[in-house]
């Protein structure tokens, strides 16, 4: 059986200036949206562009935005809500103890849902990155979790037809982020209890949480809660958003094998940070790396029956012999 083609998109992040605390103004100048889209349209294998709402360069009218992307033969990818990139969220957004801040964040995400509702098949991404803490004795874990659950309930009830996705991450910008791993994210889904709340697997975040990507996929798929995968890489300690496949080989390969196994049909975001490299070359390399890994995973998938049998009998060595002969 032929494996599915990956639905690849990238977002405005690929063209970011990549400022950080030592070089806050970043390493690059901004690239106008038209130039960004022109670059993307020429990269074979890329299908979509994901805007940032409301701070990004999308148009105010979703129909105009669809038209703009159509001009470049691109589809609208997931819409990322910026509820983290301003100092007003410094003590949290959806879990803030300050009701005014919480309400502002809920409204912002509802606005993004209204925008997404006009775009067929669109999905809203949330990343509660400021919702966490830094020190022991700094936060009330009980009320913070309650606010987080209530906020997501209200958001999801706003329009059950629009999917709202959550992205977990262990740390940065907070030292401890509440939604820190796949298990906690699933607990959130269960506490919220809404069908339109779903999950994002960011491969770099999962590595930082010392998780196995394929296992995460299997777990999320059991709950039917995987809609978006973000592809990047790291050394399992921090989130430098390195180009996919440049650090870790086996788990990345196993992940692509499992995405195929669970018939994943959602978006794959090419996400990377390239403060020291040429951004466009990095993007091209990222696409190439993903497609090469996918080719290897497809080669392995042709032997899935044998691999499954080996798994059942705990014959790891037989599987690894088979796989290494297939790919090298």
């Amino acid at each position, binding site marked *: 059986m032929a494996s599915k083609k990956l639905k690849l998109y990238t977002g405005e992040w690929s063209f970011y*200036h*990549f*400022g*950080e*605390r*030592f*070089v*806050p*103004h*970043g*390493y*690059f100048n901004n690239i106008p949206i038209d130039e960004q889209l022109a670059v993307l349209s020429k990269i074979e294998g890329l299908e979509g562009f994901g805007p940032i709402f409301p701070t990004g360069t999308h148009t105010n009218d979703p129909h105009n935005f669809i038209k703009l992307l159509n001009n470049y033969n691109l589809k609208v990818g997931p819409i990322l809500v910026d509820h*983290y*990139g*301003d*100092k007003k969220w*410094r*003590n949290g957004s959806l879990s803030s103890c300050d009701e005014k801040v919480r309400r502002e964040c809920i409204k912002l995400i509802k606005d993004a849902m209204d925008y997404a509702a006009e775009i067929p098949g669109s999905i809203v991404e949330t990343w509660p*990155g*400021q919702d966490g803490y*830094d*020190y*022991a004795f700094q936060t009330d874990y009980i009320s913070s979790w309650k606010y987080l659950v209530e906020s997501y309930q209200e958001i999801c009830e706003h329009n059950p037809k629009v999917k709202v996705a959550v992205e977990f991450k262990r*740390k*940065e*910008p907070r*030292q401890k982020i509440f939604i820190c791993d796949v298990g906690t994210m699933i607990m959130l889904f269960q506490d919220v209890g809404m069908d339109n709340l779903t999950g994002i697997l960011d491969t770099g975040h999962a590595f930082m949480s010392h998780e196995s990507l394929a296992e995460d996929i299997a777990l999320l798929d059991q709950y039917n809660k995987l809609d978006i995968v973000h592809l990047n890489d*790291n*050394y399992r*300690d*921090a989130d*430098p958003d*390195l*180009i996919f496949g*440049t*650090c870790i080989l086996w788990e990345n390969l196993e992940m692509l094998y499992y995405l195929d196994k669970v018939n994943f049909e959602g978006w794959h975001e090419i996400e990377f*940070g390239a*403060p*020291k490299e040429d951004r466009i070359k990095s993007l091209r390399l990222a696409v190439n790396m993903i497609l090469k890994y996918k080719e290897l995973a497809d080669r392995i998938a042709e032997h899935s029956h044998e691999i499954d049998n080996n798994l059942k009998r705990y014959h790891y060595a037989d599987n690894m012999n088979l796989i290494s002969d297939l790919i090298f």
Partner: protein
Amino acid sequence: MPLNLKYAIEASVFWPPADRVVPEGYKNQVNEADIYKFVKSVDGVDGVELYYPYDFTDIKEMRKILTNEGLQVSAVGPGIWSDAKWKNGSVTSFDETIRKEALDISKQAMYAASELGAEILTLWLGQDGYDYYFQTDYQRKWDMVVESVREIASVNEGITVGIEYKPKEPRTHQIISNASKALKLSIDTAMENVGVIMDIGHSFIAEENPAEEAVYLMNHKRLAHLHSNDNYGDWDYDMIPASVHFWENIEIFYWLNKLGYNGWINFDICPFREDSVKACSLSIKHTKKIVDFIKKIDISAFDSIMKENDALAAQEYLWNLLFK
């Protein structure tokens, strides 16, 4: 000679604390003219640590401000990291123009240190490293860093060039990543005025026990200077000292006292969301409490415990002394 500490606050504590998620920073920019008033208002502060040219370019003007505020200078560092031009390294850049500029700034910082009465140059080579495998020539980088540090240290042998090590950030890998490599570098230069700056937070990220590394550095007479902050051992969040690692901080100060460290401790903290003056005051307060505590330890009694490798007796001794 027992421990003799002077307390400094890094002026950069009052820069707007930014990160890649909020590059504009979590707080409003403090008026630059007020920074030294804020530093002076920190409880227990003796001095300030500066970066040239980020904190100042006019030495006379800087001296006037410091005199007015009654602040000494713990150390001066060359600003060779906070700009996109350093993205492929500073004193180990393969671009000769960039490397020369980094060396020139470092030599100017040596001069500024001497003019401002500081005895230490803080040399943090934050951009000198790599991000990916197969990206850099490790051999060439090492030769360049040894040669560069020698060149900087030769400018004024009365100033100690302190190599501040750190495993990562902003690069995923920095070449001077831990205490042993920094010590090796200082020895490779064959200069007596080259030493190591131990940033206690960086030591945690390098998965070191700071006390053990400080002992080795002091045995080699290469512990030039201390920076203090804390984290969870995985990232350089520059938190308030001893807010995470309690016993490790007690142990390092025990050894600094035993071996007679006589110098500065600079608080290189980054209070992203907290009031900066309060965070600095708390940092000094924590440290002074630790120093008071370790001075109560009977060194000869504790030596006897350690001779026996008796971890249980050591714990009992410390707990009885601390929580009586």
